[in-house]
């Protein structure tokens, strides 16, 4: 059986100490040798390897390091040991391989500075990217033969059709929540009947579209970023460029068009599902029959609410698709970047959608569509 590595310290007759190593000086058996050697305080003149049964490069490194630090002489090293010590001896000791660490304050200030720079360069790149997409779209309008119908239809399926289930369920539940909360609050004034106003106007004007946009950003915006980001890492985008295919035309425009067309359709669908949910709750809790609900809904919900939703939806769709594709294109280097950029795509898309939604709300009120 192999013996684990050990050493004993003896005094030499002419002053100084000798370290006598024994056992198996290998990675699996060195145990606490490293810390014990570090703890040595006496001057070491000689290192005796006569009793070492086996040695590997980790053992050789420890011997070499000790010898070098103390200036000791290595004696009785057999061939294997001498060869391995020779092999590890050429390493440059002076340069640290650990990355340079800055002080906390410098690090903090540095982070802020980097953040600001990144924010501005990202904005600049995003504008450049939007320009590219507009240019690619213009070229496609002039040369409709180059338009990738196939890809657009595929993304219709991915962005729209496959989202129907989850968006429908989500909207249905939101309709129920709005009606239920509205009914509880309005009952205090004996104005339960206004629950219908609440459901009708809120879903068409705001929530139907907004919730759909958030769901599409989470489902499709992230998928766009991850797909394109992975294609960047595997050099597929570079390959496209060399073949003469413009990535903005082949990858970005079809996705943006799919999102722009699908968002209003999903928005209508989501609003209808929310109305159904709200109507169902009104029927059960407030005992308003569906026929009355529909008649009342048509009286209180102006057509402008519908148009407001339909104007917002394609804009949101474009923002989500562009943010996803843009972040995907920003991926460089390694797989961690794909994750980071995918997250960034979703966060950016949802943030921009909500900012724009606030802008639209004020705008439409100002022009009298309220």
């Amino acid at each position, binding site marked *: 059986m192999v013996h684990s590595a050990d050493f004993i310290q003896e005094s030499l007759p002419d002053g100084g100490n000798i370290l006598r190593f024994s056992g198996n000086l290998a*990675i699996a058996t060195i145990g606490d040798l490293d810390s014990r050697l570090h703890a040595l305080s006496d001057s070491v003149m000689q290192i005796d390897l006569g009793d070492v049964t086996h040695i590997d*490069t980790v053992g050789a490194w420890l011997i070499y390091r000790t010898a070098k630090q103390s200036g000791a002489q290595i004696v009785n090293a057999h061939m294997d040991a001498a060869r*391995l010590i020779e092999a590890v001896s*050429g390493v440059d000791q002076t340069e*640290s*391989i650990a990355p340079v660490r800055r002080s906390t304050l410098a690090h903090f200030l540095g982070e802020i500075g980097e953040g600001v720079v990144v924010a501005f360069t990202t904005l600049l790149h995003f504008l450049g990217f939007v320009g590219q997409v507009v240019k690619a779209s213009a070229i496609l309008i002039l040369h409709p033969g180059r338009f990738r119908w196939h890809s657009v239809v595929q993304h219709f399926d991915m962005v729209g059709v496959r989202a129907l289930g989850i968006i429908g369920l989500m909207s249905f539940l939101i309709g129920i929540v709005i009606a239920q909360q509205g009914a509880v609050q309005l009952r205090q004034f004996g104005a339960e009947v206004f629950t219908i106003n609440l459901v009708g106007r809120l879903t068409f004007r705001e929530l139907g579209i907004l919730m759909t946009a958030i769901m599409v950003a989470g489902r499709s915006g992230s998928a766009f970023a991850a797909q394109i980001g992975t294609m960047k890492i595997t050099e597929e985008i570079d390959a496209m460029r060399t073949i003469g295919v413009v990535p903005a035309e082949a990858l970005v425009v079809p996705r943006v068009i799919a999102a722009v067309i699908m968002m209003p359709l999903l928005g209508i669908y989501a609003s209808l599902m929310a109305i159904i949910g709200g109507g169902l709750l009104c029927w059960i809790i407030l005992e308003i029959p569906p026929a009355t609900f529909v008649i009342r809904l048509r009286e209180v919900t102006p057509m402008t609410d519908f148009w407001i939703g339909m104007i917002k939806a394609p804009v949101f769709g474009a923002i989500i698709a562009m943010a996803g594709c843009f972040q995907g294109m920003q991926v460089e280097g390694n797989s961690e970047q794909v994750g980071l950029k995918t997250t960034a795509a979703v966060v950016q898309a949802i943030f921009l959608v909500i900012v724009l939604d606030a802008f639209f709300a004020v705008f439409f009120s100002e022009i009298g569509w309220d």
Partner: protein
Amino acid sequence: MAGDDIISVQGLCNSFGDQIIHKDLDLDVRQGEILGVVGGSGTGKSVLMRSIIGLQEPTAGDIHVFGEAMIGKEEDEATDVRRRWGVLFQGGALFSTLTVAENVQVPLREFYPDFSTDLLEEIARYKIHLSGLPPEAAHKYPSELSGGMRKRAGLARALAMDPELLFLDEPTAGLDPIGAANFDNLTRNLKETLGLTVFLITHDLDTLYAICDRVAVLADHKVIAIGPIEDLLATDHPWIKEYFSGPRGRAARRGHAKRVDK
């Protein structure tokens, strides 16, 4: 089973669906040799390596590494054997979010969590040195390295645990001839200094002539010939003849003869 065989494969069968890769394949790797494995594309060189290192469950057959049966071994039992070998994958397979030094430290941290950070760094530093990388490569990320440097970094990680057995999957593929020759020398030197046994998959005829002690030829789902390259030249299997006596084979042989003369 002979006592000095590091790897012993017997009756190995591998198939994917209807496609048979290996049928009754036998192979022995001896202590302290560099065994080159050659074969046309699709003859299952990589599948053979993956079977031996346990990434691919064979359909049938026995595999012994260091005298221990590898088939049907539990994951935690296999770990004891795994720490005795190192693997260099074709593309390096470095962890892309870690620096080269951190990549080398991964297996060490995994198996020896008690090692101090300083010692881990020292070990990483000399392994990187042994693999022929400059010290400043240590804190670079894999994406910042050239193809050749990435292979060397992968080799440094494969050597991290001081393995007795090294698997190299096409180490010189994609390297320029100078880089490939340097890598061959490095492999040979490391084998001699560290006393390694090397299982080397290659397409590079120069590598076969320069550093391999024996060469195994994969064709027709099995090892059709194994032995020193001179013996293989004497066999009359059509594929072996074409492989070693084609224009590239002849050129590599001439180059080797010249080097030997010098």
